[in-house]
């Protein structure tokens, strides 16, 4: 097979599995994130600050293991953009090989109305100061801003370059179609604007202010994406594994009423458009996915590929026979089990869940830390999956 044929073959494996058509073999996706940096012998700060090193890391990851698709190819190097303005959302500890994310609010509860009135104005006048100390103390210069813009250009160039390399030299299809990345407005509030603590307070106190802010944020950042999707031609982009990607985070803190009011209507709108367009969406669900199950039961086969972080994939298959599953390989097993145990798990998953399509293997959690996986276990599973 030429590289182009191999890339199309791999994309088809995912497409067939998503549509419950028995694929030639069960496809295997890499959900390895910062682990692959440590596995290649680099420090996290080295690779996350150097695009050439990151490229070597991603190349090596594929050369060493051989997946059908790599989900993460250095997106965390985007830290260089805010760092140009003196801030970073991550704590990197090279000695321990760890990355921690900071939960920081850039908007206070009593400012939600102001945010709702003019989102853009709020970000420039208050949000930037909260996020960037040099913005707050007035020492920021045009040179600093230009540096951040330059870093953004470098990052975009890198992402374009690494995607092209992995596509052309390694025959890996992109996991999502171009512009196929979505976000739910509440998750944006949770992750970027108010933080976990802040959003928990907002949903209990003066909830009208949250509703207004949510609508404003949605209109400013997410509605244009949905409108664009509505205008897209019907049918999937068969060059990519999936058409669309939604990472769901904040459902882990919502009670039922909050879920129904603040999250589901926004998510449903996206799913309904994707269903109408006969596209496929990967839903990565942090924590437990169970609360989504009832809501997803009536969607047609081929629309949803669920990537659960915590739940039993065999139970999901029973409860949601219409939903394809991406996942199933526990990081805990890759990190502490033997090669034989890991291969046995892969085999059981493929035989029970993948015999008629509807299943793609990947890791249940983002593989981030050194001890999350033993290299020999990863290699054994990859070899087994290729041998199917």
């Amino acid at each position, binding site marked *: 097979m030429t590289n182009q044929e191999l890339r199309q073959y791999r994309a088809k494996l995912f497409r067939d599995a998503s549509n419950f058509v028995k694929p030639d073999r069960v496809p295997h996706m890499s959900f390895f994130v910062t682990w692959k940096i440590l596995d290649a012998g680099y420090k996290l700060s080295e690779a996350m600050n150097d695009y050439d090193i990151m490229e070597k890391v991603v190349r090596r990851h594929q050369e060493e293991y051989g997946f059908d698709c790599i989900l993460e190819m250095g997106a965390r190097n985007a830290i260089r953009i805010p760092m140009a303005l003196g801030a970073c959302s991550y*704590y990197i*500890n090279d000695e*321990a090989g*760890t990355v*921690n994310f900071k*939960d920081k609010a850039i908007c206070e509860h009593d400012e939600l109305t102001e945010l709702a009135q003019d989102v853009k104005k709020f970000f420039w006048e208050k949000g930037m100061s909260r996020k960037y100390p040099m913005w707050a103390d007035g020492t920021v210069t045009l040179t600093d801003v230009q540096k951040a813009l330059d870093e953004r250009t470098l990052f975009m160039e890198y992402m374009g370059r690494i995607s092209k390399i992995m596509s052309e030299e390694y025959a890996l299809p992109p996991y999502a179609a171009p512009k196929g990345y979505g976000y739910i407005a509440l998750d944006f509030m949770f992750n970027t604007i108010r933080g*976990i*603590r802040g*959003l*928990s*307070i907002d*949903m*209990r*106190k003066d909830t009208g202010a949250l509703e207004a802010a949510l609508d404003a944020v949605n209109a400013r950042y997410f509605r244009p994406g949905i409108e664009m999707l509505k205008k897209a031609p019907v049918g999937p982009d068969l060059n990519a594994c999936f058409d669309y990607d939604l990472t769901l985070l904040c459902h*882990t*803190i*919502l*009670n*039922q009423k*909050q879920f129904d009011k603040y999250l589901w209507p926004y998510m449903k709108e996206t799913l309904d458009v994707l269903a109408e367009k006969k596209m496929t969406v990967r839903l990565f669900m942090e*924590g437990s996915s169970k609360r989504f199950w009832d809501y997803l039961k009536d969607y047609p086969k081929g629309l949803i590929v669920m990537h659960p972080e*915590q739940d039993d994939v065999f139970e999901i298959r029973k409860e949601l026979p219409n939903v394809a599953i991406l996942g199933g390989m526990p*990081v*805990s097993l890759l*990190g*502490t089990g033997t090669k034989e145990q890991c291969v046995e798990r892969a085999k059981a998953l493929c035989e029970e869940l993948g015999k008629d399509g509807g299943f793609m293997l990947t890791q249940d*959690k983002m593989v*981030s*830390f*050194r*001890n*999350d996986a033993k290299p020999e276990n990863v290699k054994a599973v990859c070899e087994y999956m290729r041998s199917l």
Partner: protein
Amino acid sequence: MLDIEKLKQAMGELDEDTVLEILNGVMADGGAEAEKAMEACQDGLNIVGDLFEKSEYFVGDLIFAGELMTQAVEILSPALTSGGGSAKGRMIMCTVKDDLHDIGKNIVIAMLQASGFEVIDLGIDVDPQTIVEEAKKNDVKIIALSGVLTLAIDSMKATVDAFKEAGLRDQTKIIIGGAPVSAEACEHVGADAWAHNPQDTIRICSEWAAQMQ
């Protein structure tokens, strides 16, 4: 006159306006009923825990409950003579080494305190040796280790091993909690128990405390 039942229910329902109105009323009356008000708040927090266990409340509600409890303590503290309930004794809780998450830990600590434990909060990113030393210094026999990242499992194991090396493992009960823990992780770590929610943590620690008394 303090309406204990109303305060307890308001706390359980996370009705901030009512809780604050009652507590401010207690202080405006001279604070003589502050102790009773605090007990009612703690009982209300137990209702929150029960509702969490029934899946009526979620993590966001627990966070809000913790915020409300903090406000309650701030309002009542000038009139409180004791430092809060410690009928079940003292225990240690912290987030383990290399993990900086504190929200889950703080929620569980608030609920443990409401249930009658005196909890020594060692904070986040706490190395095993510090936990062992603090346990020795404060004569603590129940340790709760929290973590969100998968690497927390390694740090939890290192902590359990540190207790073994210090010759304290047999007399110490250790529970692990947080997103990455499971029965398998508990076995790997060598902990005595594991939990994914505050109510299980309280139940297990309360059983241990009763056995130790």
